[in-house]
């Protein structure tokens, strides 16, 4: 077979993404049709920036979901004779091409980028969500009550924030530290926050309705503790929830780095919103503090929090890439974008093709998230 030229390569790559294009088309068509009844999400389709951002993000979500269909090869397949080959190089046996060339272990760069989206899409949003749980659970009371609690929590948050992120990673993500079990301790504290959050959330709402209270609390505790035992201690009796020790280490560090910033934002919002009339009204009604915080203040802080959530997923993606770049990634073989860039940069001046695609992929995803955040901010301000 012939080596493909750039036009054919582009065409074939676009072709491989066909399921993603169909998915994007369906989602956009449906959303634009019903945008009037979709709330803030629907309003996103009034802003061009928001639509471009959403498109980029959805593109990578769909790619991660459909990676098995899109990628022509497996991310770990090594084919002899394909080492460092240029983009569009044909396979020796005539079955297809390495569309974006081969890396230094003769693996398909294109397939690795596609599979790499899975790692990012699985870790970044989850880590951000956990950081938000921690930040919200601690930030709301710190802002609402103020006083000593606020002083202590703010000092702790500033302590973590004064730590240069990169130093923290070098200290926290090492094989030695895994031996001491410190990541597990941190995880046992950080992973408890979502459970605490939901327990307090339901308790403050349904205190007077024992039926609903028992249902929701029971559900939270059973599901929460089940996942907790598996994720933090790797001791899930049924074996559904588990986390590789290395992944746990990275996950915990990323949550740890992100939560103080979320704390500061939530604290500020909580201080601001508690001066509003509806909070005063709730206080006069005799509502408990936690009810006011979780059911009056939090819903009214959702706009800025949603915007920050999008930005923070992007930031977390960059952080994960940084970790991969320093070889602290999930596993040495994984197609993680940061690690692929790190591997590719060693031969950059001779073979730029293995490093460039993951770099552009990471950039486009973060750009998408930033644009989405911009669109959301613009639209939520119009309310």
């Amino acid at each position: 077979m012939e080596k493909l030229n750039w036009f054919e390569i582009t065409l074939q790559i676009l072709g491989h993404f066909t399921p993603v294009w169909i998915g994007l088309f369906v989602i956009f068509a449906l959303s634009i049709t019903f945008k009037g009844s979709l709330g803030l999400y629907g309003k996103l389709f009034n802003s061009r920036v928001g639509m471009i951002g959403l498109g980029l993000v959805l593109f990578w979500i769909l790619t991660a979901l459909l990676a098995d269909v899109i990628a022509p090869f497996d991310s770990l397949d090594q084919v002899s004779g394909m080492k460092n080959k240029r983009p569009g190089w044909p396979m020796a046996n005539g079955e297809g091409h390495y569309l974006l060339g081969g890396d230094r272990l003769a693996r398909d760069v294109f397939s690795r980028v596609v599979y790499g989206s899975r790692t990012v899409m699985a870790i970044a949003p989850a880590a951000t969500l956990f950081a938000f749980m921690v930040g919200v659970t601690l930030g709301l009371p710190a802002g609402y009550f103020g006083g000593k609690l606020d002083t202590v929590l703010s000092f702790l948050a500033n302590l973590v924030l004064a730590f240069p992120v990169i130093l923290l990673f070098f200290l926290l993500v090492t094989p030695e530290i895994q031996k001491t079990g410190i990541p597990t301790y941190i995880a046992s504290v950080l992973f408890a926050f979502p459970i605490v959050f939901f327990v307090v959330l339901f308790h403050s709402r349904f205190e007077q309705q024992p039926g609903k209270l028992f249902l929701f609390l029971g559900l939270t505790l059973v599901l929460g503790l089940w996942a907790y035992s598996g994720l933090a201690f790797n001791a899930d009796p049924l074996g559904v929830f588990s986390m590789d020790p290395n992944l746990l280490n990275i996950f915990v560090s990323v949550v740890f780095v992100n939560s103080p910033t979320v704390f500061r934002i939530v604290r500020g919002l909580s201080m601001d919103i508690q001066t509003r009339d509806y909070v005063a009204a709730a206080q006069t009604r005799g509502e408990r503090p936690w009810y006011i915080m979780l059911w009056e203040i939090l819903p009214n802080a959702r706009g800025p929090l949603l915007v920050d959530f999008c930005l923070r997923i992007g930031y977390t993606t960059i952080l994960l890439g940084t970790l991969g770049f320093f070889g602290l990634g999930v596993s040495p073989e994984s197609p993680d974008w940061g690690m692929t860039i790190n591997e590719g940069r060693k031969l950059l001046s001779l073979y730029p093709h293995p490093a460039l695609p993951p770099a552009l992929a990471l950039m486009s995803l973060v750009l998408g998230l930033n644009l989405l955040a911009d669109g959301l901010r613009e639209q939520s301000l119009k309310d």
Partner: protein
Amino acid sequence: MLLFTIKRMGVMALTALCLTFIVFFLTNLEPNLEILAKEQNNMRMSDAQVESWLEREGYKRPLLTRYGEWLGSFVSGDWGASTRFSKDVLPIISERLYYTAKLMFWVMIVMVPAALIIGVLSGMREGSVTDRTLSTVAITTTATPEYVSGVIFTVIFASSAVGLKWMKGSATSATDAITFANFALPVMTMAIYGMGYVARMTRASMAEVMTAQYIRTARLKGVSFPNIVLKHALRNALIAPFTVIMLQFPWLLTGVVIVERLFNYKGFGWTMVEAASNNDIELLMGCSVVAVVVVLVTQLISDIGYVFLNPRIRIQ
């Protein structure tokens, strides 16, 4: 103002103490010490030999005692010796810091004016075509971390694949003499990531100032638009970005580490990675303290500077 400064410095000292203790704890974990013992003697030591060596060298005493001891010698200027470079830590760090300071100087020279110009130009007429174009540029640069832009720039300007070869892909020689060819890439790579953020802050601040009453008064008085921007708006619009620029320093540290690794520029960030990956405990301690102090001092300066620049805060 004086009380405020003293209070801030007290909190700062406390923070520095806590942070150095955390670093001390994390670098002196059991497995790290075990590796240290094996490196200092031989790699095939038995566990009992490791234990007795650690006992003899005093590593088995309580952590707080050892931290106190470390702090004492640190304050008196004895920062220990590096196992990686077989030299004293203090001269290594001061030499490397000088190289990094050179890099940072050029980054700031490129980044700050560019970011302020972009910010002011897009903020002075919110929603205009200039604003939209420049905002898109700014948002794209914030989505491009150093390891991405570094790779892209190297491919474009320094690889044989594209063939421009204007610059070198390595900045190792820049520690001796800075030339455009060996220094432009690292400076550009670092400046670009921070630039977008500062530009966006400047834009927001500028846009807010432009809606103020005194700007409207000036316009109605018939002051020309360039004059309004330069004489009336600019000074007030630059207060917020000042804080942001100062707070960039800790963030730039991550950039320094990435860029120095990427272009093999042997400065402070490069040394820190060497220390961390070679289990060089005392060098890593020294680097961490310097990093933490830099962060805290910039926070202090930005706090004081903000109060100084913005008279409205002083009344409270």
